[in-house]
């Protein structure tokens, strides 16, 4: 018996991008195109979504696949789960394969929870007897008990997701392919799902976990693979591959904004540099709770002065690209009537509300809604943990949300009914520092 559960060799997938960009078309349209081209086929452009991909996964291993959007992760997933065939290469999977792609696929709103459990189970290739045997377990895991005979159109979206994941989680394949399912549901349910995957792995199942969530990949997987532009750019221990990924992000983005090619906007105004300052000193990493200045240097084409320019920036979490903060000069009422041809924009962020972690920023400038310059991932920053609340306590590192000042109090309710609006000082939280 071989210990290798998945063996992939020279896998490649090519898409032909025709004049009509991919997908379906109209027959009449194609006939018309042929007639115009005097019988010639419309010229096709080739695009390799995956190229020369090879790797092996041992039985019982949890293997992570990471990479940017468009790196070929989902194409790989679709090939491994046999939704689409490869153009070249081979993959050998030893054992039954179950794919957890997007939960809720195949749920029908008119059918009851019970009917959908059976239908969805059948779609995922579970035997009816197995579903029957584990039915109570599935319902209990999903926590939808009393509503199981209600049409799912009456379910909340959270309930639907929980039920769908629960069906899929009770699949018992030897190889499980998981894609981003953990981005659904509340924290408690996500933890339940992670536990379940860990349990499955301990029982000797092989799991391929494809995700944007570096934290989850790091905590679950032993080995990982990094895909970039359809090719394997790193494979090995999870820490090493994640470092490679973060390094790739940095390499892709020259620190020097002047040389950045990949940007939006008319280019009449361009950002050329960016830095962080604290009390007039340039710093690399701010600390939570400090006042910091984000300074953008720009240049305009020619010597024209611009009126009413709006500057803005968005801070994203590096791990999952979730936008956390949106700052815009216009929104806070700062309208710059005349900006000099070369200059420096300074945004002061009071009490830096970011918890310790890694972030990246996108910056832009627009003139009456017209984009002058937009640089995605212009800058990366690491925030150090600080005493934001002055309480000496750190926020829970699992709660990756921005920090806002808040005050709490408890008092006895004097009225029997709580009809008062929440302007009562006892219930309100102080929202500005």
């Amino acid at each position: 018996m071989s210990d290798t559960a998945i063996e992939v060799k020279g896998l490649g997938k090519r898409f032909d991008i025709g004049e009509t960009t991919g997908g379906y078309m109209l027959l009449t349209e194609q006939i018309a195109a042929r007639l115009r081209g005097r019988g010639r086929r419309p010229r096709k452009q080739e695009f390799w979504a995956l190229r020369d991909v090879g790797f092996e996964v041992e039985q019982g291993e949890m293997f992570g696949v990471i990479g940017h959007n468009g790196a070929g992760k989902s194409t790989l997933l679709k090939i491994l789960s046999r939704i689409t065939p490869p153009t070249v290469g081979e993959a050998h999977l030893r054992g039954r394969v179950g794919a957890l792609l997007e939960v809720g696929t195949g749920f029908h709103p008119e059918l009851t929870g019970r009917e959908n459990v059976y239908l969805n189970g059948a779609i995922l290739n579970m035997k009816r007897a197995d579903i029957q045997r584990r039915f109570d377990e599935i319902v209990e895991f999903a926590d939808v008990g009393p509503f199981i005979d209600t049409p799912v159109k009456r379910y909340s979206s959270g309930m639907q997701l929980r039920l769908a994941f629960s069906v899929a989680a009770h699949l018992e394949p030897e190889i499980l392919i998981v894609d981003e399912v953990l981005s659904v549901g509340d924290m408690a349910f996500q933890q339940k799902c992670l536990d379940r995957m860990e349990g499955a792995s301990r029982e000797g199942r092989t799991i391929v976990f494809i995700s944007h969530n570096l934290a989850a990949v790091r905590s679950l997987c032993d080995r990982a693979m990094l895909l970039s532009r359809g090719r394997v750019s790193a494979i090995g221990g999870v820490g090493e591959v994640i470092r490679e990924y973060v390094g790739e992000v940095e390499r892709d983005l020259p620190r020097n904004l002047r040389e950045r090619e990949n940007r939006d906007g008319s280019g009449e105004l361009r950002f050329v540099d960016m830095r962080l300052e604290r009390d007039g000193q340039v710093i690399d990493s701010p600390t939570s709770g400090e006042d910091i200045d984000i300074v953008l240097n720009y240049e305009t084409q020619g010597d024209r002065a611009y009126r009413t320019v709006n500057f803005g920036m968005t801070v994203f979490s590096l791990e999952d690209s979730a936008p956390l903060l949106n700052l815009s000069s216009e929104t806070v009422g700062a309208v710059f009537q005349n900006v000099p041809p070369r200059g420096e924009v300074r945004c002061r962020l009071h009490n830096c509300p970011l918890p310790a972690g890694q972030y990246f920023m996108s910056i832009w400038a627009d003139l009456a809604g017209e984009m002058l310059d937009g640089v995605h991932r212009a800058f990366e920053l690491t925030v150090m943990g600080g005493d934001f609340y002055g309480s000496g306590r750190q926020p829970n590192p699992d709660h990756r949300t921005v920090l806002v000042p808040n005050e709490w109090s408890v008092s006895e309710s004097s009225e029997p009914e709580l009809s008062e609006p929440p302007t009562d000082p006892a219930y309100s939280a102080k929202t500005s520092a």
Partner: protein
Amino acid sequence: MNPPDTAAVAAPEIVIAPPGRWRPVNLRELWAHRELVYFLTKRELQIRYKQSFFGISWAVLQPLTFAAIFAVIIGGVLHYQPPGNLPFLVFAVASIVPWLFTAQAIQGAAGSLVLDANLIAKVYFPRLALPLSKGASLLIDLGIALVLVVVVTLLFGVTIASTAWLVPAFLLLGVVTAFAIGTFLAAVNVKYRDIQLVVPMFVQIMFFASPVLYDGTQVGDQAGQFVHYLYSVNPMASVLDGMRWALFDTPYPGTINILISITSALVILLGGLLYFRRVENFFADVI
């Protein structure tokens, strides 16, 4: 989760490789997914009848309504004399029931893949399960409607011929025809979405090209035998004429004509399935 069975040694090895151009239907795999076909069929029926006021009686009301309208048109307006002096309603109901099945199965199957595009893009299963379950759900309706045919026939005091045991054979030909055409159109529909507009038109044309409102065995009487052979290339010719012959002893469509129809249906089936299998792999990429 329970530990994977120790039989994992014998677990099947799945090899994923670029597919060939022409592949036969993988019956073993389809059989392995029979429960999926069952649940998809059940879903069709549940959705169709769950929220309708008349529920499953639609399966009777629909053909009965159409039959009544046709009876009025051919009897009251056109003064057409049905073969074997059948009462108008008996003739109409016996023709409409198999025709409605065919028309609905072709249209249902043709749209089945696009309708479940979400499933196709997200999960692997034999794609034939979709048109197959569409047809299967309509078979239930057909079964119920056949009871209507018998009831109407008996109510009008028409004797059922001793050849009635052949009716299922002709119906089978109709089922094969509908499935073959529907499956082919379903595959074409994935790539060319305007097929959705062509299908209803195609079914309309087929309605007039099939002996639903008239006796097809007379086609050759004036135009000659060859035209009747040509007419029988449409398998529905033998399905409808043959079923009426078996049930009421109306004129026999002719053995050669029936053989032509069977051959035609099998050719369409084979071509449809081969085409379906050829493009099946790429449904997820284009849908």
